Each structure stands twice: as C-alpha cells, then as structure tokens.
C-alpha cells in the first residue's frame, strides 16, 4: 500500500468495481430490490397494501441505485487517483448528496401530483428518514466493497510473491555443478568454457529477471536450449533430448520459465540417476486453439518414490498456469515403472492476464 509502484495491477488502487459494466449494474439492481423488500417488510404488515407499498419503494430505490451507478461510472476516473480512505469519504459524500437531491425532487414531484397518495410523511421527516437510511446502506456497501477488494488483492499479491520466490530457485546443485564443469573446461577446452560461461550468464539472467507473466514460446525454448547445452557439457552422451515440436506456433504466449524447469526435473530425477543416461522426449501438438506439450523421461527403478523436489516445481508451474489461464490450462503427470511423463495443455491466442 505504501508503495503504489509495487501493487500488482493498475486497477487495484481503487476498491470500486466498474459501475459502467452491465454485470455490475445487474448486481446493483438485485441488491437494491432486496433493500426495497427489506424496507417495505420493516414498515408494513403483509396484509393488503404490501405489494403496492413494495412497488412504490422499489421504484424509488431502483432509480436511486441506477442513478448512483451512473454517477460512479462517470466519477471513476477522478476517484481512481485517490488513496482508499479519501476515496471512501468522497464516494460516500457524492452518493449521499445525490440521495438528498433525489429525495427532494421526489417529494416536490409527488407534491404536484397529490403527495398524500404516495408519501405520507411531512417534508422534513421524509428527507431525514431517507437520508438516514441511505447513509447507512451506502456506508455498508462501500465497506463491503473495500474489504472484498482488499481480500482479492491480498490473494493476488500472495500468489505473485510465491511465484517470484519459487522462480528464483534455480537448483543450487545445478549451479555449482556447472561452475565445477566450467572450472574443469577452463584448462582442457577454453573455447567451450567460454561458451559455457556465456550460456550460464544468459540462463541466470532469464532466471533473475523475475517472473514474466508471458513470453513467446520461441523465447522460452531458447532458454531451454541454453539449459540443455550446459547440462550436455556435464553429462555428455548420457543426456539425449529429442524435440518433436514443429507443430507448435512459436508466437504462442506462455508464462516464462515453465518448460525449462520441466527439463531440469527430467534430468535431475531421471537421466542423472541412470548409469547409461537416457533420452528426454519433448513433443508438442496443436488441436484447435489448444496447445499440448508433453515431456517424458526414463526413470531408474531404484529411485522411484523420491519425487518431492519434483512436486514442488510442478505445483509452481501449475499455479502460474492457473493464474495465467484460469481453468483453461491443465498439467498432468503419468508415471509408469520406467517412464515419467508430464503433459501440459494451454490455450493458444488467449490474452494472458
């Protein structure tokens, strides 16, 4: 809150929903009608006149609600810049003023057409009563909106914090092993050592850059290729990777660093534990507007059941896909005795949030 630059998105500073949107207005009208029913129930018995009274009350409250929505829709650009406490007061005053004016107009108009039939209060009583009721309801509604927006905001912040924390987690084991490889190559093969340092730098840059909600598939696969090159230096012929991804559109958007950790897992939990190594197979295909990527690696029988690190990386990716695509993406794992396969499905051409 103290640092607006770090808030998750532009809109979160203001706690009001968009009153110009049809959905919001529908909800406003429903709530207004409930209020009308409540007020009528409180003031009248259910006998005889109830429905007539409800009709009058509804007419009054619904118009007020519509007018309020319209005012907030218009006023939003001005309110957006205010800090929450001030925005609360300003919005409250605007709506209260509007209610007063509306009550006054209603009284005058009904007076012309024979006040007694519709309003049975004196002028002052009517204004006082309506403004007391409206101020309580406005205050409650604003308080509700404020709390629920704070709640949504905290969830979003928490998710993002978790993402960046997890993303910073390039496996230390990999980092130190790579450094050791480079130290060794520095003497035996300086040219390759040089390439390895460059690759490692690029990989660290991609990792330290913090979470990117989306990158192109092309960029993500470049990071994966760099990672693969470094691991290849270390593992030699034990590591083979087969790519069958011609069908995938390289322009597709994907949350950054989601495929690289999958390969990292495949190597750490699969290839590295096999004396003869093995082949990681990455295949991709497209069905309609869905993209499927599948990565499988052989696993050693004796290492089965030691997958805790694996689960963490997977749940991180799952969380980020959920944030980016809602329930339109899925990640699943198929485990057999000697093969571990991760399948991800996500929409192509969706705007990522």
């Amino acid at each position, binding site marked *: 809150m103290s640092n607006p630059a770090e808030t998750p998105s532009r809109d979160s500073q203001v706690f009001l929903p968009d009153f110009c949107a049809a959905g919001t207005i529908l909800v406003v009208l429903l709530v207004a009608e409930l209020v009308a029913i409540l007020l009528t129930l409180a003031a009248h018995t259910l006998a005889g006149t109830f429905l007539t009274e409800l009709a009058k009350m509804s007419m009054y409250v619904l118009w007020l609600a519509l007018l309020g929505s319209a005012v907030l829709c218009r006023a939003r650009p001005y309110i957006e810049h205010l800090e929450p406490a001030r925005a609360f007061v300003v919005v409250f005053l605007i709506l209260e003023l509007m209610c007063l004016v509306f009550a006054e107009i209603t009284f005058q108009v009904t007076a012309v057409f024979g006040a007694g039939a519709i309003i049975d209060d004196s002028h002052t009583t009517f204004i006082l009563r309506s403004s007391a009721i409206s101020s309580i309801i406005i205050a409650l509604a604003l308080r509700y909106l404020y709390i629920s927006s704070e709640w949504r905001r905290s969830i979003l912040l928490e998710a993002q914090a978790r993402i960046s924390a997890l993303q910073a987690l390039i496996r230390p*084991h990999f980092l*130190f*092993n790579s*450094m*050791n490889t480079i*130290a*060794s190559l520095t003497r035996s093969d300086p040219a390759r050592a040089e390439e390895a340092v460059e690759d490692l730098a690029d990989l660290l840059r991609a990792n330290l850059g913090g979470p990117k909600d989306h990158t192109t598939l092309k960029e993500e696969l470049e990071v994966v290729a760099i990672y693969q090159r470094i691991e290849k230096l270390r*593992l030699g012929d034990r590591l083979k990777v087969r790519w069958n991804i011609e069908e995938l559109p390289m322009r597709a958007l994907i949350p950054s660093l989601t495929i690289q950790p999958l390969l990292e897992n495949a190597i750490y939990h699969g290839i*590295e534990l096999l*004396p003869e190594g093995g082949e990681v197979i990455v295949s991709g295909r497209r069905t309609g507007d869905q993209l499927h990527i599948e990565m499988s690696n052989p696993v050693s029988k004796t290492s089965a059941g030691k997958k805790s690190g694996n689960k963490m990386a997977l749940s991180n990716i799952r969380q980020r896909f959920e944030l980016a695509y809602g329930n339109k993406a899925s990640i699943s794992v198929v485990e057999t005795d000697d093969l571990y396969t991760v399948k991800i499905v996500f929409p192509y051409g969706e705007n990522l949030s």
Partner: protein
Amino acid sequence: MKILIVDDEAPARDRLRQLIEESDEHVVVGDAGNGLEALEMTAELDPDIVLLDIRMPGLNGLETARHFNALEKPPAVVFTTAYDEYAVDAFDAQAVGYILKPVRRERLAKALARAQKLSAATLSAVADGAGMQNRRQHICARVHGELRLIQVEDIRYFQADQKYTRVCFVGGEHLIDDSIKQLEAEFADSFVRIHRSALVAVSRIHSLEKTSDGHVSVRLRDGDALEGDQLGISRRHLAEVRRRLKGRAD
C-alpha cells in the same frame, strides 16, 4: 598416496585429476564413473583414498562407501558434492571428510591429508543425518576375492551359517559377513524374521505350511520350501510372520 576418483561426470573427474596431478604429492591410480565400477577398481587397484561423489546413478556415494567395508583393506574416503545441505551437516557432525564443488586446491589438499576410513556405523549415521535412505539397495559379497553385488530386491532369504550369513537370491547364494541381526534392523520393512537364524523376504513368501511334527514352515514363491527344524518358523516368531503376511498388499 594412491587415489581413485569416482564421479559420474567426466568434467568433474578431469578437474580432480588435474588438481591432484599438479601437487605431486599423490598419484591418481584410476577413475570410475559409477559406484559399481568404483568397487571393482578399488578391489583391483587398492587405492589409499577414494574421492567419492555422493549423487551418482545406481549405487550412490554413501552406499558405495558402505560396501568398501566388505573389502580386505578398505580405503579412506573423501566425499565430493556440489550441494547437499543436509549431507554436509551430517558430514560435519560425524567428522567425515568432504569437498564442495567447484573444488578448491587448498580444500582438496586438506581433505586428502585428513582422509580416513569410515566405519559402517559412521556411514549409517551420516545417511540418517542427511535424511537419505539408510537401507542399502545392494548386498556386497566377496566370492573368491571378487566383489559381487546382489540387488536386495532379488534376495529370497538370509540364513545364519556358523560365523557367516548365507544370502539366497534369485540366481544363487553367497556368504556374507553381515549378521542376521544387523540385516533385520536394516531391512525390517521388507524382510521378516522367521527364526533365530533366518530372515525371509515378505514378498517372496508363498504360504505357510504345517509340517508333520506340528511345526509351521514357509513355502517360498519360487517353489522350494524352507525345510527342516532350522528353517521352520519358530513359535516365538509365528504371530509376527502371520501379521506381516496379512498386511502384505497383493
């Protein structure tokens, strides 16, 4: 001193070799890419010190080190690791020598100077401290001076045989030094004691049979029954054997 280098990554082996050969104090007698190779080469080359990577496919470093104790003259061991928070804590706690990768020349020299033989008890304490599986995946037997590794999965039963223990597995039987008591403690989750002198793999038991003299004996899956007084189930263990068979998921 004669040194054997064991690491599954070629650049890591090269690096250690470079550093050791530079110093002139020690000789590298060979290098191995996995634990099994390491055991064979240790038996053959008789190094004084083995530099042993922890994370290796097949036999990992800790298990390899435990099997060294089956050798006539076990070598001293220094572990190498890139990053193993828990293992490093456990090494410190047990005063076991290790080097972190990337390897530093001074650190290597120091570790080699202090290298020592490791007892089975120390290694087991390290495995516990590191949260690693303490249970071996292989049993090491010496047959005519050669080392043989037997996968624990393949073992049908252990049987005490005078001062040795006979391991009976799919494909034969060998004698080992480990006592039934030690083996029972280590493999309690998959083996059951049926008698003072016999430990049987629960998954390989076919059924229990009554013998003519009123005792109960075990019939193994592969068909051959464990017969005679020695191999029948003793009264003291019968209830436990029944319980384990009942709990078996099959």
